């Protein structure tokens, strides 16, 4: 094979990494380079430096070190049996590219993953070397997100965590049979074992950090994971339950959902069509309901239909409210926070503002309207000083009144 130049390699290895949805650059320690050394800063809030036409943000230089892999996971474009062009970066090339992009304000930092070459340990060593070089040789203070390679030596994972802001390992498929079928060499137990190790290390260093100021920080932005939606038969209910156990067991910062998208040179086991992108969106909404709105996983599943699928034509919160109308209407002027959070159309910010403001005024519908995006959506579920929905809450055709208007169907939609 002819030698590839950096740009050709970048095209191959960025293309290979794009199916990973995670791009967050937030939640790490505050730092800057005003002490006269180093490059970069992070201020807690992530920054999206550009957006691609697929609506995803580009915050980090997201690449693989190599797209050669000894595994044969069917959903993955880089699997052993795929015919994609292979390329490999040296650690130095990745370091140079990261610094050059960072200095021009293109990126917040680096997201580095890799296909597995030779062995898990060898691959992990290479990832750690890039992070080490950035941090130690170049005093880089931007964001680094490293993938944990399954089965890598815990000592290597520990070193990675000392350099990285965030670590992640993908559970890939929500059910064990799905994983067995589509990723025969991966095992849920080993993936979750690795997550457990990272969590242990995070907890340990946090604990040490409380006692010794100089204690090293381990992955201060925590760990995350990703699940592929629509490549196997798992229902939304399965996915929601799986996500909730992952949040509980491993204190994950985020679970990403990635709608399976057709990949070039796909394996015959996979569906050829993508699932509706809306399904991914609904899963993120349900994720938010669990994390910020006090919904229990079982309650989110209640919003799903008999097959465990969330409705695509309305958000899960509205679906839940329409199913459990006995909880409504809610009195904006007296209801506690938990009940206000259940009202479709009231977000966490609006609820906080209502709670603060209602000490000074009795809310009218106009007041609510100023705090929300669409008062029409909220109206059937609330009582205010000048408004009572009377029969509206109980109308049988309420769903049609509240659903977003139908758009022309996409001609080639899945």
């Amino acid at each position, binding site marked *: 094979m002819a030698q590839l130049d950096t740009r050709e390699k970048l095209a191959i290895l960025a293309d290979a990494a794009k199916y990973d949805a995670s791009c967050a650059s937030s939640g790490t320690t505050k730092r800057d380079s005003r002490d006269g050394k180093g490059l970069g800063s992070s201020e807690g809030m992530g920054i999206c430096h*550009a957006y691609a036409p697929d609506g995803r943000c580009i915050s980090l230089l997201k690449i693989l070190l190599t797209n050669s892999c000894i595994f044969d996971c069917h959903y993955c474009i880089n699997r052993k049996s795929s015919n994609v062009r292979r390329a490999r970066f040296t650690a130095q090339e990745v370091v140079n590219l990261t610094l050059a992009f960072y200095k021009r304000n293109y990126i917040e930092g680096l997201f580095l993953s890799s296909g597995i070459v030779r062995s898990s340990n060898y691959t992990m060593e290479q990832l750690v070397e890039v992070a080490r070089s950035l941090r130690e040789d170049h005093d880089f203070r931007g964001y680094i997100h490293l993938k944990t390679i399954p089965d890598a030596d815990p000592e290597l994972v520990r070193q990675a965590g000392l350099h990285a802001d965030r670590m992640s390992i993908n559970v890939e498929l929500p059910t064990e049979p799905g994983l067995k079928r589509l990723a025969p060499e991966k095992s849920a137990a080993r993936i979750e074992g690795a997550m457990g190790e990272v969590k242990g290390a995070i907890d340990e260093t946090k604990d040490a950090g409380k006692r010794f100021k100089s204690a090293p920080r381990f992955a201060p932005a925590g760990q995350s994971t990703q699940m592929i939606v629509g490549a196997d038969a798992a229902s939304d209910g399965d996915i929601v339950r799986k996500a909730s156990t992952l949040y509980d067991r491993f204190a994950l910062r985020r679970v990403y959902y990635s709608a399976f998208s057709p990949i070039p040179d*796909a394996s015959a086991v996979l569906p050829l069509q993508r699932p509706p992108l809306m399904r991914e969106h609904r899963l993120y909404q349900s994720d938010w309901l669990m994390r910020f709105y006090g919904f229990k996983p079982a309650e989110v599943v209640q919003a799903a239909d008999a097959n465990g699928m969330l409705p695509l034509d309305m958000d899960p919160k509205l679906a839940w409210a329409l199913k459990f109308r006995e909880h409504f209407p809610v009195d904006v002027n007296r209801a506690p926070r938990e009940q206000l959070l259940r009202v479709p159309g009231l977000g966490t910010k609006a609820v906080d503002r209502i709670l603060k403001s209602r000490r000074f005024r009795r809310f009218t519908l106009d007041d609510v309207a100023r705090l929300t995006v669409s008062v029409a959506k909220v109206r059937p579920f609330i009582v205010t000083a000048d408004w009572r929905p009377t029969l509206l809450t109980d109308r049988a055709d309420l769903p049609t009144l509240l659903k977003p208007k139908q758009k022309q169907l996409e001609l*080639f939609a899945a």
Partner: protein
Amino acid sequence: MSIAGRSADQPVRITLAAADDFDGWRDAARDLIEAGTAPERVVWIVEGGVGDLFGGDAPRPPAAPSFSVLRQFVDLAKAVVCHSDPERFGLLYAMLWKLQGNRKAMEDRADPLLDRLERLAKEVRRDAHKMHAFVRFREVEEEDNKTRFVAWFEPEHHIVRREAGFFVRRFANMRWSILTPELSIHWNGTTLTEGPGATKADAPGGDPLEETWKTYYASVFNPARLKVKAMTKEMPKKYWRNMPESALIAPLIAGARAREVEMIDRSAAEAGMAGALEAERRIEPGGNLRAAWEGLLAEARQCTRCDLYKCGTQTVFGEGPLDAAILFVGEQPGDQEDLAGRPFIGPAGQLFDASLQQAGIDRSQTYVTNAVKHFKFEARGKRRIHSKPDAGEIEACRWWQEQERALIKPPLTVALGATAARSLTGKTVTISRAREAPLTLVDGSECWVTVHPSFLLRIPEEDRKAAERARFVEDLRRIKARADELTA
């Protein structure tokens, strides 16, 4: 800042030194509150745009204020002052006036005045955030052979001075300049200096690394999920003109659909053909066989040899490696095959796959096709019920089957059911009799006859079904053994 007009009913004119002159506003507001001037009487004017902060009045010595202001309000005011809305100073003063009577007014978010101010502040913060994100530096060399990074940016509000700190913290050890229409800021590694506004022509025209960045931008885009609205919501078009990667957006969107459809088509064809391509690379480096087969496929898609092309969705052609030892001929595609364009994937196809597996035959190593390549059906309500092809249709379609066989030259052909047998032999064949021993085809190769898998699906009695199924698998086993003999 200067104050004019002091008599009770005359409007009070306040002139501020710059568009983002927070200190000037604060000093004036303090005086006005102390004088008890109602907000309606005050007119706020900015002197000559953002301009030079130091050119105006000397800063006043900080006077001991006679009243205190909430920290929360000061933060809000510092943001709102940077907005481009000409009413901002007046609105802030009205809020400050209101706070004198009601210290709790800052907590009532439903208050229209506070709501408006919060919105202004939000827009300023958003613009600032977008500046952090979308400033693009270009590297230039200076006289002393050191490099400087220069950016041209057009913010919507007067935020440059306010946001300089972000770039200082991040790029403290680089030399950089950010040029904007109102104001330029320069950092030399130790101090920040301000200069007058600039034009785009003052900024460098390019940076060799931008091509690499554009390569990255194009590669990280996934054409299977086009969400242009989501992109423009977060990256409004007004910022595009100063971002090198935005030149790619239009072509990427235009190409996306085509790329996805191509990907699916290719995988669909390859699902059946992956093996074929591989095997054929082995046997025929020139790829003539494949080219011929592809030509045949393209022709078959346009086939109008009988009337069936009018109602079906598409021609369902055979698939499999072109050096297959076994070629299966079925009857005709069913409902699901017709929609997917691939043979034997519906219920009968699944039974076929399972039986092959039991008999130890790898389907991907065989070529599978149908005697008739279009779906013939009767529409009953929303369902399409299979109906048997007649002799004329079998005859019309036979040509394709013969072309396929001529290309592949399988040592062993299997007729699944009477239609296939008729197509292969040209005669009516009784399955039960023909099943016993192989027939010889015109080209001298062997043809084995067995039942069609859909026959097994239609048997109502469970025990007979199981028996027939076992017999079918037994046939397949014999076929495999014979194929192994022939290719050995």
